[in-house]
């Protein structure tokens, strides 16, 4: 043992080229494996956190919509908000004010958002319905604080799609007590995993009954 150690100590030859190449190749393979593992884990983390973020935002959005609609005294699934709104519902609050929830991509928006605005000015729309009072439209989805870190890092933002408002007026052909509104929307922040190119986000839906 001592003799072998001494022999190595006396050996002044460097690493052979083959040894270096083999070591480099092994290191590269290991590094690529670790790197790809890291990247895929990071991506999974991003998907996970984006999913969690969208889930949370969607839940908050549902609660916000529910809070507004529950207190309404009346609603009507009718055109309102703007001529470019793709889905809208008009509702009245107990104080006599009129409001409109609508999905719209307004000037300056990169993507469609959910908006709420007041309708007390009774501004007629060319396409029918009533338009938002000037300056009253407020996005419920696109505020800067509603963008997750992941989405910010990836340069994306929250968006909605396929919003529907549906009057639930009958159950098995008989009237129900109270008035119910079915609300559905897709929410996407650009960072979630997309099953296909047609995927427009996590689908949220609820039915709320007007309490007033």
């Amino acid at each position, binding site marked *: 043992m001592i003799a072998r150690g001494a022999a*190595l*100590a*006396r050996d*002044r030859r460097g690493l052979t080229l083959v040894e270096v190449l083999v070591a480099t190749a092994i290191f590269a393979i*290991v590094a690529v494996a*670790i790197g790809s*593992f*890291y990247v895929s*884990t*990071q991506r*999974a*983390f991003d998907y*996970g*956190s984006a999913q*969690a973020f969208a*889930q*949370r935002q969607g*839940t908050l959005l549902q*609660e916000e919509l529910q*809070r507004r609609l*529950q*207190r309404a*005294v*009346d*609603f*009507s*699934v*009718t*055109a309102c908000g703007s001529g470019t709104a793709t889905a809208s519902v008009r509702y*009245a609050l*107990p*104080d*006599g*004010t*009129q409001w409109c929830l609508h999905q719209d991509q307004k000037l300056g928006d990169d993507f469609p958002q959910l908006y709420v605005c007041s309708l007390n000015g009774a501004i007629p729309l060319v396409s029918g319905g009533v338009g938002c009072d000037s300056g009253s439209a407020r996005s419920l989805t696109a505020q800067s604080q509603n963008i997750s870190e992941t989405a910010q890092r990836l340069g994306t933002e929250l968006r909605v799609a396929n919003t529907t408002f549906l*009057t639930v*007026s*009958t159950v098995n052909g*008989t*009237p*129900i*007590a*109270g*008035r119910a509104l079915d609300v559905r929307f897709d929410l996407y922040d650009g960072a979630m995993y997309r099953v296909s190119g047609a995927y427009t986000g996590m689908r949220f839906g609820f039915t709320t009954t007007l*309490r*007033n």
Partner: protein
Amino acid sequence: MPAPRSTLERHVLDERGSVLLMSIVLVFVMTLLGLALFDLGAIENRMSLASQADLRAFEVAQAGIERALRELQDGFVGDAAGSESWADNDGVRAPICSPSCATGVYRPMTLANTTFPGGGSFAVEIMLITVPEANATSPYPIGLNCFRNAANVCTNLVFVRSTGTVTDSPAGGATSPAPAGYTARKTLQVVARAYAPSVLANGLVAGTPSAQQPVNGNVLIAGSAHVLGSPVGALPAIDWNGAGTGFVNHLGTLAPAAPAPDAEILRRLPPQQAVCTPTATPCAAPNVYSLGADVQIARPTATAAITLAGGAVIGGAAGAAYATGGSGPGSLAGKGPLDAIYVADGCQNSTCSDSYAVTSPSQLPVVDLGAIGRAYPENPVAPFPLLTGANPVAIGAGTYANLQTYFSTRAADLSGNLNTAGRPGHSGGLFANTANWNTPNPPSGGNFTNKNGAARRGRICWNRANGVLTFGITGTGTTTNPCNTPATAADPLLVYNTNAAGWRITRNAFAGRSSAQCAGTTQICYNGAAVIYNVNSVMLEEAVTSACLTGSNPTCTGEKFPTNELMVLLTPGNVTVSVTTTSVPRVMAMLYAGTDFIARSSPGGTITRIVGGVAASRFCFGGGGTCPGGPSNHPEVIQAPLSGASASLSPVGDSRSLPEEVLALSPSINGQAPRHWRVESVPRLWLECRPSSGALPTTPTGVCSY
């Protein structure tokens, strides 16, 4: 001989342990990522649980509201008849607050069993409402009818606030969904209202017709209307055509400035309540008189439930300035919009418009807050309460199979005392130029039993000199004339009439004699309160009002209809009003028909005003109706104001003043025994509180406000 290598060189060249190092680094990185993912999962789980706890807290708060409403109903129903109140702090019946319930501040309501096995509990608070608060929109947009007490507090209105709490503590339950360290709390606020659902206390109530519509023909209804039944065939429930028909929320057609004023009706009615119409801008003082009109039409759902043409209206124009009760505030106009309207499945929007069929959009209902899309609130629809069959009623301390059983077993049977034509009085009726007519003076032991089982002596007396029909009553042990002491609504004369001709007051019953009590007009006036059950039909072909001295009592103080003077005519058959006679200007009574209610004076005659409350399986009105046929005038059905509250006037009675026999005629909901009082959360005043500071305000102002 090479020089020996340094320690550093040896370590550098020594490759042993590199795999371990790489493994450690890899494990470290993976651990970091794993921990991050785990943390993410834990956060998501926590958020999900918090969301679940929030939702549960909301539902628990709602459960607290429902519980409170139930307790309040039990308390109101459990109070002594005629003095039901949430403001009496009697310490026995709901609401029991600790300390006592009060106005201006929320007090905790004493309730047991407020926790749920699955986690969560609720705490309910109560605040009484004053008359000014109820009438005006400041600071709350209320404008509600209230039963006023001497302290100016509404006895039938309270604020109810319920806070649902879901904690992670053991007190929250082992299965509480709240994550560690999180407490979910939600607070809801409503206004609870007690009201009499009796079919005779709500303007017009229609049931299921034998054919055609529940309300056939034209009519103007001032006050509430409720249609429980479905039309036969593909017809609307209501089909009105012509000016002067529809629903209004005021007594404007009687006002001095109206085309056909009627001061005689106005002075006999209790003062109306003055309220603010709910708007975004509160009004500091009441600005309109309101009947609190609430229209509910249950069916049909597949086609238009209400069809309007030719000037028929639902709400809208304000009534002329006027007052009831004579003195008092008389400068206010009647309220224009209806308080609320509920029609079928509430289908009235851009994609669904089958609730109303109108010739012009301007004919759509004018209702508070523009809420025309409300659906009929009950499913299944309660059946119209009939007088016979399986329609139990609770009166006094007893429960009876139906109202006929109640009357047939205890009311005074005066059938033999009516003439052969079924008229009270002589063969010519209550004829002024014949002798006075009285039923026999009852024996001292009494001739009927009242709701509480006490024997009573009852008598009907007709005074030909002044045209007054008196419903008298005394206790037993005397032979004095009962007509010296007119019966009160709290202890009315109960009559069971089996005469084959039913009960008739015909035109020749009164020869046009004028009197102070009858205000110099051709009519019969009654004094006292009577509930008369007729096995056969009721026919009224003469004007009938409550008695009220003209000269000495211009405001009819103590002689108000229906709280002091009241005639209730019940029959399982038909009621006809002004069918064969023209110009019957007014009938002040509560009328119930088990089958048809027919009112159709001939064209050219005076419109008949039926004041009080009417109920029937089917209404046949003139001016376009087809049952039983023929052209005629449309009548007006006018609900008597029974809110009993006006801040500047003394209380003169409200729905609680009605006889229990009237209050017992209520629809049964979901097969439950009908109650005299129903309690509901007032629509438009439900609110989720969102206190910014974490502490709720003691009054419903600030963040948690209307």
